[in-house]
């Protein structure tokens, strides 16, 4: 962050830095993968106990009510300290959505469990034939007494095989955006089968989920039956802003710098200009995110601007990791991270994982179409 920090912000940064220094377990620092729940969730809970797990949530919902600047400070320090990745579907997606649109019962049941780390969530949106074109989804739900009975198939479900709950879009009637219902599904319900999918990065970050006569109480519907599209998209800008935060670019920059630090002084000098380019790029993403977030908070005109943030942040991450591969030189293709003493240095893991960034959350091609048609007002395209 470039701006001059206030005394309070400086104090917060140093408090975060020293707490992270003392509290991140050594074996979880600078990991190449997001750790499995057995490792990730104790860390999640530690952050939660410290009060920093949900910086962007209002205090009334158990969050920190942090300003965008405080959030950026947290992200920069988490990246710098090499803190492990945690699951975010609860924190960034369903949590804020329930705060806005959930029933009192739904809020009481779910919000504190998300903050405490007692419930892991996954998102059931994509289907084999409904990815970027989400409105073509066909997973069906019929109403029987006071239940929805769901049959169908969801895919690309991040952490679906670890999740306790899924928030999903299912078709209760109609076509396209009409007749879609937003529902919360307990993953322990009978009739659910999960099959992990191995990614090009070699991890099983996501899975597919099959529904066979899965019975979900109607009280788990968020909003009205058939109004799910509206519910799901009501926080779209907010959600896309989480895909455009400074967190991932800072993580990528830390990886790049750790690779550069292994080189001889002479070689380091050769890469200096590129590293500077990456630093400028990270500050650009941070500036853009702060700008949009601060205007979002103030309630002035950010509609669809999240699309530009998503494009900017995800493509910046990829460009920094492309650079990192070049810096890694002949180590770039190694299966295992490079060990330098007791330091584990990621070579290609995050690079491989980052290929998904420009695909998920609405591919960057979709985001560009949104920018062209809705922000730049270019006529004739699909809106």
């Amino acid at each position, binding site marked *: *962050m*470039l*701006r*001059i920090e206030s005394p309070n912000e400086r104090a917060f940064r140093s408090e975060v830095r020293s707490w992270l220094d003392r509290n991140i377990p050594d074996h979880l620092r600078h990991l190449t993968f997001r750790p499995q729940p057995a490792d990730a969730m104790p860390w999640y809970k530690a952050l939660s106990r410290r009060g920093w797990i949900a910086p962007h949530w209002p205090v009334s919902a158990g969050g920190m009510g942090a300003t965008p600047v405080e959030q950026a400070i947290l992200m920069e320090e988490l990246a710098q300290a090499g803190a492990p990745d945690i699951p975010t579907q609860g924190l960034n997606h369903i949590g804020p959505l329930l705060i806005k649109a959930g029933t009192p019962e739904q809020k009481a049941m779910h919000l504190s469990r998300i903050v405490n780390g007692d419930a892991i969530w996954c998102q059931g949106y994509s289907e084999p034939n409904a990815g970027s074109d989400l409105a073509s989804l066909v997973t069906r739900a019929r109403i029987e007494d006071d239940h929805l009975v769901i049959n169908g198939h969801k895919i690309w479900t991040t952490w679906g095989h670890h999740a306790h709950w899924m928030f999903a879009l299912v078709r209760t009637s109609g076509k396209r955006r009409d007749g879609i219902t937003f529902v919360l599904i307990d993953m322990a319900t009978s009739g659910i089968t999960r099959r992990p999918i191995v990614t090009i990065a070699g991890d099983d970050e996501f899975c597919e989920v099959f529904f066979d006569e899965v019975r979900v109480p109607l009280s788990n519907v968020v909003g009205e039956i058939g109004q799910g599209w509206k519910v799901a998209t009501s926080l779209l800008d907010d959600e896309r802003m989480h895909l455009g935060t400074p967190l991932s670019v800072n993580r990528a920059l830390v990886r790049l710098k750790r690779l550069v630090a292994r080189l001889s002084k002479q070689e380091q000098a050769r890469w*200096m*200009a590129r*590293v*500077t*380019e990456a*630093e*400028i790029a990270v*500050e*650009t*993403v*941070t*500036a*853009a995110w*702060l*700008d*949009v977030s601060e*205007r979002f908070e103030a309630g*002035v*005109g950010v509609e669809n*601007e999240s699309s*530009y943030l998503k*494009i*900017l942040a995800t493509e910046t991450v990829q460009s920094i990791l492309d650079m990192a591969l070049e810096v890694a030189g002949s180590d770039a293709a190694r299966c295992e991270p490079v060990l330098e003493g007791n330091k584990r240095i990621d070579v290609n893991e995050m690079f491989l994982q980052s290929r998904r960034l420009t695909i998920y959350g609405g591919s960057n*091609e979709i*985001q*560009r*179409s949104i*920018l*062209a*048609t809705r*922000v*730049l*007002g*270019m*006529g*004739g*395209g699909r809106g």
Partner: protein
Amino acid sequence: MPVWSEQERMIADSAADFFKAHGSTDRIRRRRDLHEHDRETWQSIADQGWIGMLISESEGGLGLDLREALVLMQQTSRFLTIEPLAGAIAAGQALVALPSLRKVKAEAISGTCLVLPAWGTIAQDGGKLSGHSQPLPGLRAADSVLLFDDKSQGMFLVNRSMKGIVMDAAPTIDGGNIGRLVLRDVQAEQIATGASVRNLSRTVKDTRLILEAAELVGIGGEVLGRARAYLETRKQFGVALASLQAVQQRIASVHVQVAAAEALLFEAARAFEGSKQSFAARAAFYRAGQAAHFACREAIQFHGAVGFTDELDVGLYLKRCLAITAAQGGLEAVRSGIAN
């Protein structure tokens, strides 16, 4: 993109009105082969108070904050102002700091004496100065030059009438000019020395960079808007070009880069007077330069053959964009300025 306050909106509007009245791109077309300073327009700019826009009202300036100045500079380049306004405003930051330059400051603000900043290597021999500056845009216009030698931490004020001063400048493609100031046994006094010079030099350099970054963002936004308008009206294959996805994807990429450069510009302004000031100014210039160059090239492509003609104004913006970045030694040089 950052939302402007009421005050900033007024500044932007009045700048737009001013430049519409003073010829905009037509003025540049009329004068571009002369490569001479447009004294009349410069005086009008001075009459607006803009040369002293960052100087406090008690010191005879307009007392704008940096953010407001950036809004104004974006507007000047949208209307293709090629005058060395950024340099003159930046020089004012040093003039105001030294009581001994009170008179020069007043003349600079009023437009009677155009003072530009330059950096170079100056040797002193018995009170006589020799050496040369780095290339200075708008050199032909300068009445006086505030010269910094960062190595010896010296600061000098020389004017074109002094014996031993050579101010040869080459024409640049935007209609301006650029050249090195050469000193041969010039009888001129050192105005200041030591740490205070280091600080003033940094302030002036960073201020010029961020003001020029604003000009570059302005150019990017302007050509993006022009391309957008053209694509809406131009039809081929029976449809507006704006409806073609291949075109939409590309113009969206231009928007992303220009919007990001603008966000960085205003974030950089909040770094001023802090420890990251110089990094921020260079970073803002670098990204703004990249975005503006990208936008100009794409805008030419979007216009097709007419984009390649001299008749279309987009070419003028590309040339201005190149002149601004070249005057800093190019984007690569600005970036290595950070790395070193």
